[in-house]
């Protein structure tokens, strides 16, 4: 992206237009910008409503970076590379080189598989009718095709670290310029008739320039005139061309090579091919005739297309470090012959790789519009495999820091994209404390659409020991359930959140509702709280009170009264619940057969005088005589004074009765 095509935003809504089409923007989490109309206010502007206030709605626009990964097909690339990334992290920095080569190949095969899927999907009617998607597909294919091409070259030159690069470079060039091979297959299938097709010699020439000697020979042998001396000589020359293989003695090879070269040139000079000028051109290419190669350059699609082929015929033993000079020379020659062509960024990056300018390459790699997929994964591989370490040290590149920052960028992008969080979190895991902090911030921001998803998020937080995140999610869900009047659900989420205040709040609500209406909310949940009640004293009270309530409802009055007395003594009774609790004791005091002992009766009386009466008095002070009922929202209470008297009476009666029974000797 050059400076001239920085994207410009314009709102164009009426409000913005009114203020001279100005706007303001704020970054919001998830790499978004919130844009809205803006009116410039200076120190001397008067602080008055504008003339047009309330005329137009204030609209807020969200702008976010477009990414290729909106396309579902590309998700497989993300998911699969995520798995490979994790494998690489497990390998760490101490594995054998071949392991890293395998990882590199795995990444490339992911891209290739994805390209194939794109190719396939692009042809489907669903995409063909959708212009926007079609364009996105083309864009994605360009980007990932380039990524694969560059990665392949990088793998050959730096990861494999073979001393012999020409054969691999040939393979690379062939893979990325497949048209010639496709045509060659056609020609082979045509057999003898092939020689009549118009591009017969063109195809053969580019086959030679791509170093495909065997295929060229096969096609030539099918020619009608294959039995003529010129063809036979060409066949012999091509067949006998020495190919350097690793392990050969270099000297021996060189002398063989020299001899073969001399011999072939002599054949050309002796006009063996005079009858077949096109055939002669082929052989001229093979011996590295500059005029013929210049013609080839003019026909080539990009500067690097025929470079590996040229090396094969002129410098077959080229070492990686010699490639630097060879590629510079070749490019000079290319740009001289084709001055009109400007290098695009991919061609530039290829040059940078061949010239061993990795630093610049990495810089350019970050500009590929794949939201850092390429640079993040490649840098991570470079870092882990330890290649080029000396190079980066010399050039003052802090590779670990660079990797860290790019992986962090990539991870946060995934994490904040709508449904890629499960992939992003893995990258952030490897970003030390910054990554952890980012997870802590981004995880609770993922919008929760179902409880199952919430549980997945909680599990992720739990694995990483992010207690606050876990609790935040629970609290949000608790609040949401509470607002939806699903109190059982709210209580359970609150218990999960381990937030004492929240649990107490909800328990309070349930108790207050009960004392006001006599209606116990979510009994099924309270009944099953069990050991979890100890999180909050209020919850303990609620659970115990509920137990009493159940005993009472099931007419187990003895257990009920025992529990009630315990509750009265427990000191965890909330103030607002005293009236309700004491009123509950009344039927037990008044029942036909006595259930509460004298000592406990005294205790109840004591609570009436020390807890209930002060509350009543305080309320009368505050609100006057007539407002007692507004504070005592118990569903059973209408006249508080009467109730108070009745309770005192009940206590007295029960006390008398209990004392008589307790102090009577058994008549036996």
């Amino acid at each position: 992206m050059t400076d001239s095509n920085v994207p410009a935003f314009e709102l164009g809504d009426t409000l913005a237009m009114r203020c001279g089409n100005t706007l303001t923007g704020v970054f919001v989490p998830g790499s978004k910008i919130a844009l809205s109309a803006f009116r410039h206010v200076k120190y001397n502007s008067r602080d008055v409503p504008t003339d047009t206030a309330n005329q137009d709605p204030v609209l807020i626009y969200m702008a976010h970076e477009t990414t290729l990964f909106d396309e579902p097909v590309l998700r497989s690339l993300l998911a699969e590379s995520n798995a490979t990334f994790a494998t690489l992290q497990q390998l760490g920095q101490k594995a054998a080189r071949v392991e890293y080569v395998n990882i590199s190949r795995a990444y490339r095969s992911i891209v290739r598989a994805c390209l194939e899927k794109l190719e396939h999907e692009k042809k489907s009617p669903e995409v063909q009718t959708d212009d926007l998607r079609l364009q996105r597909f083309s864009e994605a294919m360009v980007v990932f095709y380039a990524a694969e091409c560059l990665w392949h070259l990088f793998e050959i030159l730096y990861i494999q670290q073979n001393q012999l690069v020409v054969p691999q470079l040939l393979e690379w060039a062939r893979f990325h310029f497949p048209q010639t091979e496709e045509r060659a297959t056609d020609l082979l299938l045509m057999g003898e008739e092939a020689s009549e097709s118009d591009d017969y010699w063109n195809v053969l020439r580019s086959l030679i320039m791509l170093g495909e000697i065997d295929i060229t020979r096969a096609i030539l042998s099918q020619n009608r005139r294959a039995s003529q001396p010129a063809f036979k000589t060409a066949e012999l020359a091509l067949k006998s061309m020495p190919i350097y293989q690793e392990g050969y003695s270099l000297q021996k090879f060189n002398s063989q090579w020299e001899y073969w070269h001399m011999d072939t040139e002599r054949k050309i000079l002796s006009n063996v091919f005079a009858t077949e000028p096109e055939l002669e051109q082929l052989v001229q290419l093979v011996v590295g005739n500059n005029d013929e190669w210049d013609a080839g350059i003019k026909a080539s699609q990009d500067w690097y297309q025929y470079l590996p082929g040229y090396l094969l015929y002129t410098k077959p033993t080229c070492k990686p470090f010699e490639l630097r000079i060879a590629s510079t020379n070749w490019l000079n020659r290319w740009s001289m012959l084709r001055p009109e062509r400007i290098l695009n960024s991919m061609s530039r990056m290829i040059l940078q790789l061949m010239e061993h300018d990795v630093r610049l390459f990495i810089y350019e790699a970050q500009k590929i519009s794949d939201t850092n997929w390429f640079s993040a994964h490649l840098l991570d591989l470079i870092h882990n495999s330890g290649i080029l370490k000396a190079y980066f040290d010399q050039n003052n590149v802090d590779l670990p820091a660079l990797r860290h920052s790019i992986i962090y960028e990539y991870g946060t992008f995934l994490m904040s994209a709508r449904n890629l969080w499960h992939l992003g979190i893995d990258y952030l895991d490897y970003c030390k404390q910054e990554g952890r902090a980012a997870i802590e911030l981004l995880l609770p921001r993922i919008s929760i659409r179902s409880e199952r998803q919430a549980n997945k998020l909680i599990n992720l937080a739990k694995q990483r020991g992010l207690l606050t995140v876990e609790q935040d999610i629970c609290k949000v869900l608790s609040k949401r359930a509470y607002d939806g009047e699903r109190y059982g659900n709210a209580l359970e989420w609150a218990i999960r959140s381990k937030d004492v205040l929240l649990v107490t709040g909800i328990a309070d609500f349930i108790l207050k509702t009960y004392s006001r209406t006599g209606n116990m909310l979510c009994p099924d949940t309270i009944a099953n709280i069990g050991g979890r009640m100890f999180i909050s004293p209020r919850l303990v009270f609620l659970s115990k009170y509920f137990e009493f309530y159940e005993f009472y409802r099931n007419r187990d009055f003895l257990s009920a009264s025992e529990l009630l007395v315990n509750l009265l003594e427990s000191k965890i009774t909330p103030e607002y619940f005293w009236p309700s609790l004491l009123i509950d004791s009344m039927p037990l005091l008044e029942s036909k057969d006595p259930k509460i002992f004298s000592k406990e009766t005294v205790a109840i009386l004591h609570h009436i005088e020390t807890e209930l009466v002060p509350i009543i008095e305080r309320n009368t002070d505050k609100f006057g005589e007539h407002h007692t009922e507004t504070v005592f929202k118990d569903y059973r209470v209408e006249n508080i004074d009467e109730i108070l008297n009745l309770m005192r009476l009940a206590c007295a009666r029960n006390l008398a009765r209990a004392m008589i029974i307790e102090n009577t000797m058994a008549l036996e």
Partner: protein
Amino acid sequence: MSANVSTHYISEKVARVRWLPEQLQQSERFITGSWDMERNFVRLWKLQSNQYATANTAAATDNVELMPRCMDKVSVEDDVTGMEFVDKDTLAVTTADGRLSLMNVQRAVEEDQIHFTARSEQLHRFERSQDPAPCTDISVYGTDIATAGEDGCVNILSSSNIRQVKRHIEADSLALFAVSFISQNQLVAANRMGVIRMLDVRVASEAQPKVNFMVACKDDKNSNFVSSITSHPMQQHILLCGTEEGSITVWDLRNLDYPASYLNAHSSPITDIGFHRKDPSKLFTAAEAGEVWMWSENKALTCDNQKDGSSAWLSGDRVKSLVGVEGVLTNIRKAINSFDVHGTRLVCGGDSEAVYLIDDIV
């Protein structure tokens, strides 16, 4: 880990996966349902021979022989939360918008098809806001379909007419996470707290039997939800529950005072639990951490005492010595949400956006 695992990335988070039922042959088609995507789909896949497999036999061992190909898809409104076949061509699908859909699958030689046949009313909704509540699970018994939802309700419908709800049971005030038929008229439904309730299809909410039992948990101060329930295909009184803490609790429904067995299994929440469709001596469990385990009963020790209704699964602490465990799939790192076994093939899928095919379940 099993040797013969093939992984196929499908660009969708998989919520549920099911083989198409086949009576006499190995099923070659399966269905996936996605969740948490821009647009969610139910897709029909067919296994086809891999056109890229190299022909020579020497290299054929690392080759993937069968590749799934997407034959057809149906777009659904929201996340798929449950999928079950009612009969051999009818698929019942529950979604997070609280509805049940029926789809019809047509097998063909070339292009199989799947399409909508019916869609229910809003089955689950939150009382106050009337917003749709996600369905969470589905269970099928004959032609009856039961759905459970986050609103704590269970709905029973008949596959012949899903526009009409046969029975609506307000089972719980918590979100239900799993539901399973244990007989024609009885259901169990489990909530987020780990409470499992027995429900009767024939009676209304108020008259439901108050039978409930709580799943076991290592630490009773923690919540432990039940994520998946299954009952033994031959001995229906045996109920197995997979839970949040990764353990399996086994209940003998004839004696609900205490769980029959409690097994420590995975270290992450169990996501799915189920017996092999044809071979009840094998149980499979899948977990959030990306594992699928196979539990196989040691036949030599348990073959003759099945008549009296006892089973290796009910033998308390001794279960581990009677049932062997092996990892079918490990180290996927992302949740496996669902699996299905048919014959010797297991298919599973999850949040790694891939389906895994395992060919040699024996």
